[in-house]
C-alpha cells in the first residue's frame, strides 16, 4: 500500500499544474461550503450570546427585529422613543424583577453613547452567563461619568480620567456638533466581551440630559428635521472620510452604512425619553404574560420582544439565503469533482503505456484501480485540508473587518459535526469519482495486456 501511495503521490507531482488546479477547485468549493456554515454558526452564537439574561426588550411600537437590533446589537436605530414616565410606570409592574433603561442617539467618534443606569452592568449577561466586568475603574454614577467598552478605550487610546465630548446623532462627524459644554470623564473601562458593548460608551441618563440641556442655541439645538447634521458638513469642511453630502442622506436609511442617522433628535423634543428598556421578569411564564400586556398597552404604543424568539425569526428569514448558499456550495463541489474526473480521465490515454509497464513488473489490475483511486482520493484530501485551512484562515483575517463593520464577532472554530459530515461526503465522492477512470484503466489494461495500441 505504501508503494502505491508513493506511486500515486509521485504521479500527481509529475502533473503539477492539473493537480494543483484540481486541489484548488476542491479547496475553494470546500471553503465556500464551510464558510457559509461557519458564518451561520458564528453569527448565531454571537447574536444569541450577546443578550443572555434579558427576558424582554421594550421600545416604541415598531418592527420587532428593528427594535432588537437597534437597542441591543447597535445595528440601525431603535424604533422610536418611550416617554420616561411610561418606563417608570412599567418598571413598577409586579412581574418585573429588574429593568434597565437605554437612551441611544448620540455617539462619540462613531461609537454609540448609551444613556443607562448602573443596573446595566449588574444585569447584562453574555454568552455562558458571563457578567460584565471592569478592566479598570468603576460604574457610572454622576452626570459627568462615562464607562467605555474595551474597543473604544483601545482604539481611541483612552484611559481613566480622559475627558471626552459627545456628538449628536449616531454617526456624527467627530468634532462637529459636539456637546462641548458638557464633557465626560472616563471612570471605568469594561473588559472585552466580544459583543457590541465593546464598541459603546455608557453614561447616566442624567448625563444625557445634562448634555442636551446645556446646549442652548448650539448647532443641534435648533428645531431639527431628518438630515439636520448635513449643514455643518460642507464640502471642504469635511474630513477626508466624509464625501460631500455623504452625511446628508438621512432620507435614505442605511445608505451611509449600518448605523444610519435616525431621524430622532428625541432629546431635544422630549428631554426625558428613552429608546428602549431591558426587562428581567420573575418567571418565564410572567415573561409571556408581560409581553402581551405591554404590546396591548393602550396609553402608549409599545413593542415588547423576547430576544430569543425574535432572533429565531431572523434565522428563519436568513434560512432561505443560507439554503441558497449551501446549494451553491454543493454545486461548486460537484463542478470541482467533475473537473477532477475530466483531468484524470483525459490523462489515462497518455498513461496506458505506464499501466502496461506496471502490469509487466507485476502489478495486478486491482493495483491499477487502487492507484487511480488513490490519486483522486489524495487530490480530494488535499483539497479538503486546504479548504479547511482557507476557511479558518479566512475567518481569522476577516474577523476584525466583520466585527468593525457589523459588530458581529465570529469566532474561528474548528469544523463542527455538520462540517465534518460535509468533508466526509466530499472525500467519499472524490474516491468514487476516481473509480470511473480506474474502471476504464482496469478494462483497458486487461485488453491491452503489455502492448497498448497507441
Amino acid at each position, binding site marked *: 500500500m505504501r508503494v502505491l501511495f508513493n506511486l500515486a503521490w509521485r504521479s500527481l507531482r509529475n502533473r503539477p499544474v492539473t493537480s494543483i488546479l484540481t486541489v484548488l477547485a476542491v479547496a475553494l468549493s470546500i471553503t465556500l461550503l464551510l464558510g457559509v456554515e461557519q458564518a451561520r454558526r458564528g453569527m448565531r452564537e454571537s447574536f444569541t450570546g450577546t443578550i443572555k439574561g434579558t427576558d424582554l426588550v421594550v421600545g416604541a411600537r415598531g418592527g420587532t427585529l428593528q427594535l432588537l437590533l437597534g437597542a441591543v446589537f447597535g445595528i440601525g436605530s431603535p424604533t422610536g422613543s418611550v416617554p420616561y414616565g411610561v418606563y417608570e410606570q412599567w418598571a413598577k409592574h409586579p412581574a418585573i424583577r429588574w429593568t434597565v433603561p437605554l437612551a441611544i442617539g448620540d455617539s462619540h467618534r462613531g461609537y454609540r453613547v448609551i444613556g443607562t443606569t448602573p443596573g446595566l452592568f449588574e444585569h447584562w449577561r453574555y454568552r455562558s452567563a458571563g457578567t460584565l466586568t471592569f478592566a479598570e475603574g468603576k460604574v457610572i454614577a454622576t452626570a459627568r461619568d462615562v464607562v467605555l467598552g474595551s474597543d473604544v478605550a483601545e482604539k481611541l487610546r483612552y484611559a481613566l480620567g480622559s475627558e471626552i465630548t459627545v456628538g449628536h446623532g449616531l454617526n456624527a462627524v467627530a468634532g462637529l456638533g459636539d456637546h462641548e459644554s458638557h464633557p465626560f470623564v472616563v471612570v471605568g473601562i469594561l473588559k472585552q466581551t466580544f459583543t457590541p458593548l465593546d464598541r459603546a460608551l455608557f453614561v447616566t441618563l442624567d448625563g444625557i440630559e445634562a448634555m442636551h440641556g446645556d446646549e442652548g442655541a448650539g448647532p443641534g439645538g435648533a428645531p431639527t428635521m431628518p438630515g439636520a447634521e448635513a449643514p455643518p458638513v460642507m464640502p471642504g469642511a469635511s474630513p477626508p472620510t466624509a464625501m460631500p453630502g455623504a452625511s446628508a442622506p438621512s432620507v435614505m436609511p442605511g445608505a451611509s452604512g449600518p448605523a444610519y442617522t435616525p431621524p430622532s433628535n428625541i432629546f431635544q423634543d422630549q428631554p426625558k425619553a428613552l429608546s428602549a428598556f431591558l426587562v428581567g421578569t420573575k418567571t418565564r411564564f410572567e415573561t409571556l404574560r408581560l409581553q402581551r400586556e405591554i404590546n396591548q398597552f393602550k396609553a402608549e404604543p409599545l413593542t415588547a420582544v423576547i430576544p430569543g424568539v425574535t432572533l429565531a425569526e431572523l434565522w428563519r428569514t436568513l434560512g432561505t439565503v443560507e439554503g441558497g448558499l449551501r446549494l451553491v456550495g454543493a454545486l461548486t463541489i460537484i463542478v470541482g469533482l467533475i473537473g477532477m474526473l475530466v483531468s484524470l480521465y483525459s490523462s489515462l490515454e497518455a498513461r496506458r503505456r505506464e499501466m502496461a509497464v506496471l502490469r509487466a*513488473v507485476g502489478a495486478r489490475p486491482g493495483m491499477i484501480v487502487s492507484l487511480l483511486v488513490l490519486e483522486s482520493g489524495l487530490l480530494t484530501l488535499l483539497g479538503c485540508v486546504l479548504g479547511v485551512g482557507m476557511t479558518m484562515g479566512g475567518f481569522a483575517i476577516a474577523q476584525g473587518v466583520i466585527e468593525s463593520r457589523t459588530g458581529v464577532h465570529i469566532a474561528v472554530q474548528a469544523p463542527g459535526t455538520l462540517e465534518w459530515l460535509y468533508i466526509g461526503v466530499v472525500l467519499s465522492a472524490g474516491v468514487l469519482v476516481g473509480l470511473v477512470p480506474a474502471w476504464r484503466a482496469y478494462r483497458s489494461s486487461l485488453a491491452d495486456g*503489455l502492448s497498448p495500441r497507441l
Partner: protein
Amino acid sequence: MTASGRPGSAIAIESLQFSYGTGPRVIDIPHLEIAPGSRVFLHGPSGCGKTTLLGILAGVLHATHGSVHVLGHDLVRLSGSQRDAFRAEHIGYVFQQFNLIPYLSAYDNIALPCRLDARRRARLGSVSLDAAIRDVASQLDISALLDQQSTALSVGQQQRVAAARALLAAPDLVICDEPTSSLDTDRRDAFLALLASSVARANATLLFVSHDAALGSRFDVQLSLPTLNRAARADAA
C-alpha cells in the same frame, strides 16, 4: 519428466490457440519447448503474433486452449491474480521502448518489482534491496544514472535501466520484446553484451524476440515464430 509437468523445461507449449475475443486466431502453436538456462532468439517479423505470444507467456493474456507451462506452472489453469503473482515473482520483462514509469527515478524504476511483490523481494535473500540495485546497476553500467529522473535518460540508458529492472532479484525467465530496435548499432551491441552476461550471472532463461534476424547468431537457440505459429502462416497465405 512427464509431458504435462515438465519441470525440466523453462517453457513448454502444447496445442496453444489464442484469439482476441471473437476475432481471428492469432496464435496456433502445436509444440514449443525451451530448456532452462538457455538463451533463445525468437525471430518474427511484425504481425506474426510475437507480442501476443509474449503476453501469454508473461501471464497477462489468458489462453484457454492447450497448455502453456512456464517454469512448471500451467498458465492456462491459473487465475488472473495467480498469473500476476507468478509474473511478479518469476519474470523480468523488457519492452521495445518506453519501459520506465516517467515520474520515478531510475533507482525507483529498478526497485519497483521488488517493492510491488514480496516474493520477488524474498528472492534477494539476505541481500538488501539497495545493495541488489547497486549491483545490477553496476553490471549494466548505469550506476551514475540511478538518481536521475527516467525522462532525463537517453533511449539507450532507459533500455539498460529496464534490463536492470528485469534482472533484479534473479528472475527465472527474462523476456525481451525488441529491446534493441530503438538503439543504433554500437549501442545495440553494447546492450546485448551486457544483457547476455547479466542473464548468465542470474542463471535465467532468456527469451529474446526481434524482427532482426541478424542478431540470432549471438544466441544458443534460434527459433522462427512464423514457422512455429500456424495462425501466422495461415494469415500470410
